[in-house]
């Protein structure tokens, strides 16, 4: 970037800051260190992968082709998974509205708002599977602890999203409705709610998809659904049946995913 000949009025070109600052190099070194330490700690290396290849291949052979033997046993777990997902979404969404409002800084009192946000953080801080595990220990096996676990987590997440939506409401329309002399609940219903509703529905649909996915594995801890059947089939080394369950699972989730996409386009 030399100055051109005869163009002496040009101000001197500023020096480009070096890309290799001390800070950045330090971060890079730290990162590489953490990385290699992790690779060592998890035993993940190219060598291990190569050594594992025959095992993977063998698994693959066991799993395919999928077997339809005993397919009538699949029906109930399949429906269980479907309904666990639906029920958890409905209950979670219903409770998310009041709890979300109570957790919104602009609508509720700090005395209520802080504890609620804290509780919500705990609800969603722990994976649904762990909640399911705890509920299974508490109330026994079956789909019910699964539903409960998903509800707790769903309430944790959806309430927070509702609270954030309420906090992000444009106060202008609210003021306008207030000036017409409408009572507070009417102000809310016409000023705030129309802004919150589309977000709320989007989240509800999104979480139906998510809940169904989670419902498929809750069975691993005994909370019903396809997961439980899968667990059984794999434990007794009947991998072909397991594959069928897995395929069924993929079909279910894909179907719900597509359905939700379709519904979403009708809402916005």
């Amino acid at each position: 970037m030399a100055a051109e000949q005869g163009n002496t009025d040009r101000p001197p070109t500023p020096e480009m800051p070096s890309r290799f600052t001390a800070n950045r190099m330090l971060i890079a070194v730290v990162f590489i260190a953490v990385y290699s330490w992790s690779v060592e700690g998890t035993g993940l290396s190219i060598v291990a992968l190569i050594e594992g290849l025959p095992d993977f291949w063998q698994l693959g052979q066991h799993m395919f082709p999928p077997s339809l033997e005993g397919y009538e046993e699949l029906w109930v777990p399949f429906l269980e998974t479907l309904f666990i997902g639906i029920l958890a979404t409905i209950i979670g969404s219903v409770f998310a509205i009041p709890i979300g409002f109570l957790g919104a800084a602009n609508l509720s009192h700090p005395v209520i708002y802080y504890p609620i946000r804290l509780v919500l953080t705990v609800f969603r801080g722990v994976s649904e599977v762990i909640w399911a595990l705890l509920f299974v220990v508490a109330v026994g096996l079956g789909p019910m602890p699964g539903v409960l676990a998903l509800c707790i987590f769903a309430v944790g997440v959806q309430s927070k999203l509702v609270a954030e939506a309420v906090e992000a409401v444009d106060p202008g329309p609210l003021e306008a409705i207030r000036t017409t002399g409408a009572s507070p609940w009417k102000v809310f219903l016409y000023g705030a709610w129309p802004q919150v509703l589309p977000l709320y529905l989007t989240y509800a649909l999104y979480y139906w998809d998510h809940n169904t996915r989670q419902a498929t594995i809750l069975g691993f801890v005994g909370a019903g659904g396809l997961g439980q059947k899968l667990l059984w089939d794999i434990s007794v080394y009947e991998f072909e049946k397991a594959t069928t369950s897995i395929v069924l699972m993929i079909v279910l989730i894909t179907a719900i995913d597509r359905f939700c996409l379709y519904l979403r386009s009708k809402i916005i």
Partner: protein
Amino acid sequence: MNNATLDAEIDSLIKLRQRVLLNWLFILTVILAVGGYAAWFTGFDIPELVTGWPHIWNLLKRMFPPDFSIVPILYGPLIETLQMALLGTTIPIFFAVPLAWLTAVNIREDHVLGNIVRLFLHVLRTIPELLWAMLLVSAVGLGTFPGTLALILHTTGSMGKFFYEAIEAIDPGVIEAMEATGANQFKVLMFGIIPTVLPIYMSVVLLYWEFNTRAATILGLVGAGGIGLTLTHAIQAFEYDEAVTCLIAIVLILTVIDRISNYLRSKVI
């Protein structure tokens, strides 16, 4: 101002409104009916929940006060969990990015390959991490190796989807403008596409770091390492006060990673 047409218009408006309301009512009824059936099918019993409350209370009593004496032995598993999460988030990047490139609708040429890749990614992400972990454990045995692999497989699928959606969402005007200046494909890529999608990619990676940390905590349930294993052992041995210590540890590291992830994401977007 024709009164007759005005009346007719108001009539049609009111009818429209009624129809919309009826639709909503219908949808609500359907949801309630399905919910009710779901409750019956899954045996979701409110009375049972009430009678089961003593069991939950019982469990809570046995969980508190937490047994903090096991904290020293938690460090190993916790570190394993964090390591799994780290690798499970960073390694997929190397696979997800090229795969996303192959399948983004606006830049791929071969439709067959693109669709196969898309299906492949879909399967990867639809199978939950825990299921992958279980399958891999039955193949290669217990430990963090299958766990990390499980995360890598699942995350490749999930990130891949975000990545190609980001590419597809690029404003075609940006590309057009660059091509109009005579830039070749490579330059369009480097200066047009990459700067646009990079913040999104970084945000997605940080998001999945958080998700994977949460997922890594439970992989131990199927023997794939991490603190989930400690938790499972504690529960199986009925040592609930130890279990709750594990839970507290899990919540703590998740909260920390959540904060860090959110902070970094706000700097990226």
